[in-house]
């Protein structure tokens, strides 16, 4: 009996996606052990990698890195298909959609910092929408909007600044 070996042809971009995703998954895991003052307020440092992938390579790479990160992290943490996973996915998808449009903004005026803030706002919007429509279908969650948007701005700025420095360091901006 001959062993059948399935060989998948991988391109250089595939390897880069894998590497970036690995870093993003690692960052997500580190973040998941950090204590959080309230559920949902997280730095979202894995978004740095998504932004970085988008600037350094292309938007497709960013989609891959972001979605792979969401799936892999939830599988590792045992949250696959749980509400946590759904929230994470909703946030990431809306965040990616926002990035798709905001990358078209003139780069003379808009740096990764601005895009990071936009994407973190999109992330929290996606999550709150899902919470409102599915988990807690009641208007009382509007109380949380100020806290979440303040956190989105703060962490969006920090992540954006890190991305900016990374890209500057690698001469990709």
């Amino acid at each position, binding site marked *: 009996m001959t062993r059948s070996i399935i060989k998948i042809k991988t391109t250089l971009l595939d390897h880069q996606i894998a590497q970036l995703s690995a870093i993003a998954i690692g960052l997500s895991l580190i973040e998941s052990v950090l204590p959080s003052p309230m559920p949902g307020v997280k730095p979202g440092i894995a978004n740095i990698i998504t932004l970085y992938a988008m600037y350094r390579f292309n938007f497709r790479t960013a989609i891959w890195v972001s979605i792979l990160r969401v799936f892999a992290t939830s599988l590792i943490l045992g949250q696959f298909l749980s509400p946590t996973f759904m929230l994470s996915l909703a946030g990431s998808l809306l965040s990616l959609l926002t990035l798709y449009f905001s990358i078209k903004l003139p780069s003379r*005026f*808009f740096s990764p910092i*601005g895009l990071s*803030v936009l994407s973190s*706002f999109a992330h929290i919007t996606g999550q709150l929408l899902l919470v409102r429509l599915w988990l807690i279908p*009641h208007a009382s969650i509007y109380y949380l909007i*100020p806290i979440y*948007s*303040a956190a989105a*701005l703060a962490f969006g700025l920090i992540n954006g600044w890190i991305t900016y420095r990374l890209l500057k360091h690698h001469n990709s901006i």
Partner: protein
Amino acid sequence: MKSRSKIFLGDSLIIFISLIFIIFTFKTFWHFETGSVVQVNFQGKTYGNFSLFQNKEMSLIGKEGESIIEIKEGRVRFAKSPCKNQYCVQQGWIHFTGQMLICIPNEVSIEVLGKTKAYDSLNY
């Protein structure tokens, strides 16, 4: 140096708009309004609405015994309750819209009402 400051022009705009948005949401969702009326619910029915701007003591005889609700200087509290835990009494005075005190054993609850209905987790 000039090009550097230009890069951040759009970003500053985004940050400025988000700051306005945050302040706006804080103002909209986090205003606490002093209530003017207290609604007393007794044994699953509304017992009555009473103005907070009066001094009044109400006595309700429920299954467990006598609950006394006290209204004074725009605030309201359970002054006495026959229940075991005394949670309702220990929560003290309330006066903001949407605040609520509940005594489940004696089936008495009071809620402060105002012009607008405030949201809380109990509505859900």
